[in-house]
């Protein structure tokens, strides 16, 4: 068994490519016309997006009755999808901000793409609160603006905290992403071959000149943004978890929800990022930038966060018994053996058992296997939100109120369509913006930094 050489730092970018070649390879998708494969992929995602539009149209015209929501399951696919997509977004910020704060250089190859995924995932997620109200055209009422009713929003409601949290998250992620893009726009500006491109890139780069006097402030702002984005991402999914945890519903009201949801969000987010990156690195030939080591590290993070989710399941179970609160105990038995047991066991298999495969190095470094594991994780995490929301609502305190929930075809269209929405943006992103951060990657190539002489 070969021993790793711990004295050497692992190269983040393999092969020590020349800086100019990094420019070329990363700019290539932007400078070439899309090929047939792109159009095929785009047509698939656009069809799914079409389903989304139709589903939403039916919902707006005929009302929420087109969904499967009933009494008592007043929240179903809408909130499950919302939490799912917000969770996916968290991986991006974690990679960008938190790994930056931990000085993990291996984030550079994937940070730009992950942040982009965050923004698109948050956009997708934002749609759900907006459409699940009965009169979506009144969504402006979510904001505290002076109005002739003299009314203000309810600041004690976690649903309102959500409005602030997700909007802040979207704005800050966008700002963070844009700040990172400025130097790259400038590089593209210098390479621009047509006048239009030159004008566009000049505008968006704001005239960035790569001056070190600017880099100094830039790095400070990047650090500040990363420092803010980290607690922000924790707070966003915490506030999402508060939507449930502040209630008195058994299975919802439990203090571990905040860190449990955050860990789960990172877990599912990394799974989605990993899936998409496996495609990206292959299609664009970025294997030496988005290395197998990077993917392995992502799998390790999935193992850690998956274990945290498993820990939370165990704690919930134990304390439900320990508390002696009979409805709480019933809720957990109901989840495992009640009418939704099929969903529960999918969740447990996918979330607790499959990520444990990542204990094995061979599996961590095998691309087909890790891809499948990550797909399972995403499925499992969707089902986790489904189990939490639907089983707790369908059977709560009063047995006379119990009912079974079934989604309708409109629910399904919206779910599938949300993937179409998300992936369409990603495809467009790959053709419009550099998916790898040119400046950051250059900074971590071997010998890119001056050697220390005096320390």
């Amino acid at each position, binding site marked *: 068994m070969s021993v790793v050489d711990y004295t050497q730092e692992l190269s983040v970018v393999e092969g020590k490519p020349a800086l100019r070649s990094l420019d070329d390879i990363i700019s290539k998708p932007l400078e070439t016309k899309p090929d047939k494969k792109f159009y095929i992929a785009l047509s698939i995602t656009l069809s799914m997006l079409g389903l989304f539009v139709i589903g939403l149209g039916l919902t707006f015209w005929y009302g929420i009755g087109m969904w499967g929501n009933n009494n008592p399951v007043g929240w179903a696919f809408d909130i499950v999808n919302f939490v799912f997509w917000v969770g996916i977004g968290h991986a991006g910020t974690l990679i960008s901000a938190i790994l930056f704060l931990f000085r993990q250089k291996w984030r550079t190859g994937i940070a730009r793409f992950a942040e982009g995924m965050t923004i698109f995932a948050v956009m997708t997620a934002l749609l759900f609160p907006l459409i699940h109200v009965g009169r979506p055209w*009144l969504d402006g009422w979510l904001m505290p603006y002076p109005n002739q009713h*003299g009314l203000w929003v309810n600041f004690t409601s976690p649903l309102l905290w959500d409005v602030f949290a997700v909007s802040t998250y979207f704005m800050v992620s966008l700002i963070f992403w844009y700040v990172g893009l400025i130097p790259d726009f400038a590089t593209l500006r210098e390479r621009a071959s047509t006048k239009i491109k030159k004008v566009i890139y000049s505008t968006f780069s704001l005239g960035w000149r790569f001056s070190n006097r600017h880099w100094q402030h830039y790095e400070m702002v990047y650090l500040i943004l990363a420092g803010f984005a980290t607690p922000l991402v924790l707070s966003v999914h915490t506030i999402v978890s508060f939507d449930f945890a502040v209630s008195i519903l058994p299975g919802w009201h439990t203090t571990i929800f905040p860190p449990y949801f955050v860990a789960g969000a990172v877990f599912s987010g990394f799974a989605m990022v990993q899936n998409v990156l496996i495609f990206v690195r292959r299609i664009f030939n970025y294997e030496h930038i988005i290395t197998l080591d990077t993917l392995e590290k992502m799998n390790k993070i999935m193992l850690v966060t998956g274990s945290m989710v498993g820990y939370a399941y165990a704690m919930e179970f134990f304390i439900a018994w320990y508390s002696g609160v009979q409805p709480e105990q019933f809720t957990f038995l109901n989840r495992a053996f009640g009418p939704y047991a099929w969903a529960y066991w999918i969740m447990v298999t996918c979330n607790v058992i499959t990520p444990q495969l990542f204990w094995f190095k061979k599996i961590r470094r095998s691309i087909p296997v890790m891809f499948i594991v990550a797909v399972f994780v995403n499925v499992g995490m969707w089902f986790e939100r489904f189990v939490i929301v639907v089983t707790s609502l369908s059977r709560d305190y009063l047995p006379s109120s119990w009912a079974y929930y079934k989604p309708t075809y409109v629910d399904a269209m919206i779910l599938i369509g949300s993937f179409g929405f998300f992936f369409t943006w990603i495809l467009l992103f790959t053709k419009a913006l550099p998916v790898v951060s040119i400046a950051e990657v*250059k900074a971590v190539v071997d010998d890119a930094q001056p050697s220390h002489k005096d320390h």
Partner: protein
Amino acid sequence: MSDKILYSYTGIFDTPDEIIHAAEKTSEYGFKKYDVHTPYPLHGMNKAMKLPPSKLGYVALVVGLSGALAALLLMFWMSAVDYPIIIGGKPFFSFPAYVPVMFEVTVLSAAIATVLTMLFIFFKLPNNAHPLHDTDYMKEVSSNKYGISIQAEDEKFSEEQVKIFLTGLGAKEITAVYYDNEEINYKHKILEPKFIGFLLFTALLTSGVSYFVLNKLLYMPPFDWMMEQDKLNPQATSTLFTDGYGMREPIEGTISRGHLPYLFKGQPDAAEINLANPLPFTKPVLEMGQKKYDTFCSPCHGYHGEGDSRLRGQFPNPPSLHSEKIRNWKDGRIFHVITDGQNVMPSYSSQMTTEERWAVVNYIRVLQRALNAKESDLK
């Protein structure tokens, strides 16, 4: 050839170590108006150029804290002052509930303020009319080379000296950079009338659209479907009825649910003979009786039934309930008086249910016994 104004002399370096060395030497030499250009930030460059640390952290701190405070005050005012509503039994000012929003506002305001300050104030961007744009120098430092640019404005600048200096550092492609015509008269775009006009236009557009949407559009179909419903609202007119009123009186003989008509209206003696008190003298009954008595009867009769209530003088005092006559009345008679009224006293049948009235009767009995206690009662 026209006299072009010199901006700076630039030099290119190939490796990070060289540019660090060059920067150190340049700042040692005493140049102040110079800059280093690299495709990515280099560690140790700030130290080499002897740059003071960035002050942007303070912007973030100050704006963040102000944002938190502003959010708190705003939420306090909206929830506890302007339109207080009791929600979930929590106090009007529920500080724990405000923490999440305060946190989000802090982050948002600090992030936006810091970035905008950096871009517009520190960097004076957007600026696409800088002399270094559109030069080969910029092409190279934006990609794979490292460069240094010593500005002509610097005190120690002299063309020959700088050229020798740069050559001495090992720079390649030492070139002069001149201002283009537009770039000379460059003023910060932020304050340009065009930009201010653009801002004004955007503000007007945004407010106009918001006004139209919120005050006009939302009242047009299909958005008004919930507002304009086919049901009849109170006080509305109706064409179904000849008198045009939407609201109708109940049909003759209609009684409310659970109501039984009082059989002994105007017949106190019949009531006394026929009505029996169904309620026993238990604590809950007496407590209810006391509560109802205190609420409805005490304004005139007083708390002890003596007729000396707090309405003294403003309303005719009723006779005491402790008189022989009333003590000898059966329960049914007292019940009748409460239900039907007597003289100035109105009927209380709409204010108390049958059960409550019987409880009051029991309570009156208690009061009567209390003020006419016998020796045996003390045991």
